[in-house]
């Protein structure tokens, strides 16, 4: 399964959004057009059969990356290429969304929701085979075959996320892009969904691109992690490497501030500072105003993502000089 063939490679991808005021306002108020660079020059490769995670705080561009990969947004520059799938054709992919309430059509029966990709892509010859496949998918994700006749509102949040997963699996994808799949769920239900996703990965040989802000979930699921800050990848490493020896000061900050149940850091006054606005990012390294080890060059020169050793890349001047 894990033959180290890339399932997905992202090369120097940038995405800018036009956030200008309406044309008339710009003319009257003499304001220029305004662009925000949501994702700047990011590159990474996801190996087949592994789970690659992107973590970061809100506004860092991690969901934009998911949408760029699934083609929901077009890239401004750079390219995204997919590895070969089982039949030699490009790898197939699907996406699982965060909110299981708004991502399912409330007026469709669950069976139709799951059958839609099969019918649309003509993956089965007859309606009988389609329904057979729907039943099989429902059982794969831990629901009953008779649930196909119910509507989404009859299910709890966790069950709805199972339906989303079944729908994503309907088109037989090899790569699943999961944008915060458990953020809307309670912990006990989150554990059920994470276990299901792990089991599916083993059984179907899936590759995951996992987007999350929850470091403990990411640690549980992934093989590789990329940490994003303000549109850029600041560190990329194997999961154990990142959690035991984070290199970038921002990764260190994230790991230091995440609540730890086993050894709570009760009396530590948290580090100050907040992420800056992506509309007006700081010069040089975007993290330098919050960085405890910032040097003079950090505010002027943008650090490049540099290979440190075989399983880690980091973008930091301080790490480079040591």
């Amino acid at each position: 399964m894990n033959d180290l063939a890339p399932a997905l490679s992202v090369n120097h991808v940038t995405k800018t959004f036009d956030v200008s005021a309406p044309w008339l306002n710009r003319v009257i108020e003499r304001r220029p057009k305004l662009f925000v660079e949501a994702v700047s020059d990011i590159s990474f490769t996801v190996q087949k059969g592994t789970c690659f995670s992107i973590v970061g705080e809100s506004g860092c561009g991690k969901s934009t990356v998911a949408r760029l990969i699934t083609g929901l947004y077009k890239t401004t520059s750079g390219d995204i290429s997919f590895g070969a799938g089982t039949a030699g054709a490009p790898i197939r992919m699907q996406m699982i969304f965060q909110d299981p309430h708004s991502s399912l059509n409330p007026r469709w029966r669950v069976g139709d929701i799951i059958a839609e990709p099969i019918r649309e892509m003509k993956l089965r010859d007859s309606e009988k085979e389609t329904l057979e496949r729907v039943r099989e998918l429902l059982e794969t994700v831990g629901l009953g075959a008779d649930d196909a006749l119910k509507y989404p509102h009859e299910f709890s949040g966790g069950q709805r996320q199972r339906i989303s997963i079944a729908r994503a699996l309907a088109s037989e994808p090899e790569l699943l892009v999961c944008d915060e799949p458990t953020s809307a769920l309670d912990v006990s239900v989150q554990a059920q969904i994470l276990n299901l996703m792990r089991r599916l990965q083993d059984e179907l040989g899936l590759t995951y691109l996992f987007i999350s802000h929850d470091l403990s979930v990411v640690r549980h699921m992934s093989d590789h992690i990329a940490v994003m800050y303000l549109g850029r990848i600041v560190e990329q490493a194997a999961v154990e490497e990142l959690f035991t020896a984070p290199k970038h000061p921002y990764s260190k900050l994230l790991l230091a501030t995440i609540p730890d149940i086993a050894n709570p850091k009760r009396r530590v006054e948290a580090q100050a500072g907040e992420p800056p606005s992506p509309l007006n990012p700081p010069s040089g390294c975007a993290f330098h105003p919050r960085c405890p080890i910032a040097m003079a060059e950090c505010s002027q020169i943008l650090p490049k993502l540099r290979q440190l050793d075989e399983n880690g890349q980091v973008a930091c001047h301080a790490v480079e000089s040591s």
Partner: protein
Amino acid sequence: MMVQPIEDLHADTAAVPALDVSGLSVEFPSRHGTLTAIDNVSMQIAPGEILGVVGESGAGKSITGLAVLGLLESPGRLCGGSIHVGGRRVDTLTEKELTKVRGREMGAIFQDPLTALNPLFTVGKQLVETIRLHTGMAKDEANARALELLQAVGIPAPEERLRQYPHQFSGGMRQRVVIALALAAGPRLIIADEPTTALDVSIQAQITALLRRLCDTTGVGIMLVTHDMGVIAETADRVCVMYSGRVVESGPVADVIHNPQHPYTIGLMRAIPSLHDRVETLAQIDGSMPRLNARPTGCAFHPRCPHAGSKCSAETPPLVPVGTTSAACWLQQGGTQ
């Protein structure tokens, strides 16, 4: 950075708990019969203490907070028990009397700091108005206190910030303003309902550290309602675990986390992915929290419980001390059969 409690206000009642809830029940009449959202919940908060109230969605933790504040929305109503804030019974007050107590004796912090502030007034005006309304201070005095409050909650350049509007603040800074507002009249109790859920982790750590510090310096008692066990572990002194409208376990934070007694708490703790060890599969609790209209008889957890016996579906276990915590489970009270 210290904010002084308003003089002599609480001098006579130093030993009185900030909050004493006993046997509280809340019900919602509906077309399909009366639904009991909160069933016989009791909890105490000492001055300067943070009590964490934790549970999954639908456990009734927010309703408990709203009931204490007297903010239950119709048709929800109290149907039993009593609530004392700083020794004074508040659940029997009229709406007019309650308006005086709310803000003065108890403050509230909600999840979304943007909707908690009025976008049309400057932060300074909102603070000064709250202070003057509840304490009758003169304008200058109230201005000085507003400045002192902003400093206490860690807002840089407070003189300028007082003249700004809520939209000019970032999410973390807005939540600090809301905390300053909750503290404005020097309350004995603050209800903080998911105060950090809308914030990023690095900001969350700043806000929880701030709550801890304010608790120590002003002696206010805080009820911290959250679904996040990590926040509880780092912030609270004691914790109440709620499940389906009842308290299933309560005790000192470290004991509940490291040595839970109730099967639900045990399952919950195991279901949280660890930051330290990687496991192949997480322990999961099958099923989900029952809906209000389909609550099982006896112990509400019994359909999901690995130890459930015949007694569990017949009788509701009371909350009794077990070792260092209290748990509501027949397992420690003579068996489940």
